[in-house]
């Protein structure tokens, strides 16, 4: 099944984010080998050159490293993955707080509401 990509943002950015999340969430384990560019491009139903570009960018950030002949692997640096996870979580929380503020909820109201909902989910 092709990856769900929206039509306004660059394809490259979207596949980069998608793979990043797959790494952070553990879909790809530290040290695991990534599928080839061609296989990933076919799975995502995107242009292979675009996939190549996204993987090169992941290499630049250190999340992925290339072994000259055998392909690309996920980093074994668990701290780096944790840092990335924190960074993405923070940015999503900021977006969320921004949305709540547009609804007229200040931070305290939002936190209170979140606590109530979190408790409800537990029970």
């Amino acid at each position, binding site marked *: 099944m*092709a990856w769900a*990509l929206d*039509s*306004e*943002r*660059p*394809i*490259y*950015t979207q596949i980069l984010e998608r793979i990043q999340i797959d790494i952070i969430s553990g879909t790809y384990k530290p040290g695991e080998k990534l599928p080839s560019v*061609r296989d990933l*491009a*076919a799975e*995502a*139903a*995107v*242009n*292979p*050159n*675009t996939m190549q570009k996204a993987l090169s960018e992941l290499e630049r950030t250190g999340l992925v490293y290339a072994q000259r002949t055998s392909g690309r692997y996920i980093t074994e640096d668990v701290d780096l993955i944790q840092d990335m996870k924190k960074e993405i979580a923070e940015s999503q929380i900021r977006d969320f707080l921004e949305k709540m503020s547009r609804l007229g909820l200040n931070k305290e109201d939002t936190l209170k509401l979140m606590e109530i909902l979190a408790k409800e989910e537990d029970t």
Partner: protein
Amino acid sequence: MSVILECKNLTKVFGPKTALYGLNLSLESGRIIGLLGPNGSGKTTLIKMINGLISPTEGEVLIDGIKPGVDTKKIVSYLPERSYLNRHIRVAQAVELFSDFYEDFDRGRAYDMLARLHIERNEKLSTMSKGTREKVHLVLVMSRRARLYCLDEPIAGVDPAARDFILSTIINNYDENATILISTHLISDIENILDEVIFLEYGQLRMFSSVDDIRFNQGKSVDTLFREVFKC
């Protein structure tokens, strides 16, 4: 990156009508490129000139540095707007025909794709639906190991599931030394597999840009941009 296709001041006049006017274009190897434009903008005229079916009124088109002829037909795989295959032959005969004509034809690849599309070797083209006949022709064209593929409306007549199959075939057979030029109106279906798009308008180049540059700079898809640029 080497240039596989070059158009220099390419012009084609049909009687009172100018189909292409002073087109300058240079396409690199290893790209998948969409050839887009409203009806009558010159897409098929360009593709026909690349394949030597019609000659330029002025200017020239070069494939890997040479003018269209026997030598370029060896490296250009062409899917015409309408299939020229004889309807009275069977699938296997069509495969043999291509195998006889083109040195770079890969029979195994053709039969593999046909099997995945559930098309039988002994089926006659005349008993097939229009869409299935189009699939057969596309399979033949994509089974060559060409340097340049020119596909004139390859997905218009086939169902959405077969469209997905065709697109994945294009990705899976993608060779970094080959360029694929696809003319189509179904932009949103193929947008994600394109590197670049060419917009033609009244026989002239309106835009030549990468898909992600369009999305990045305009914040909209190529499909949306097309609808805006060519709004009637």
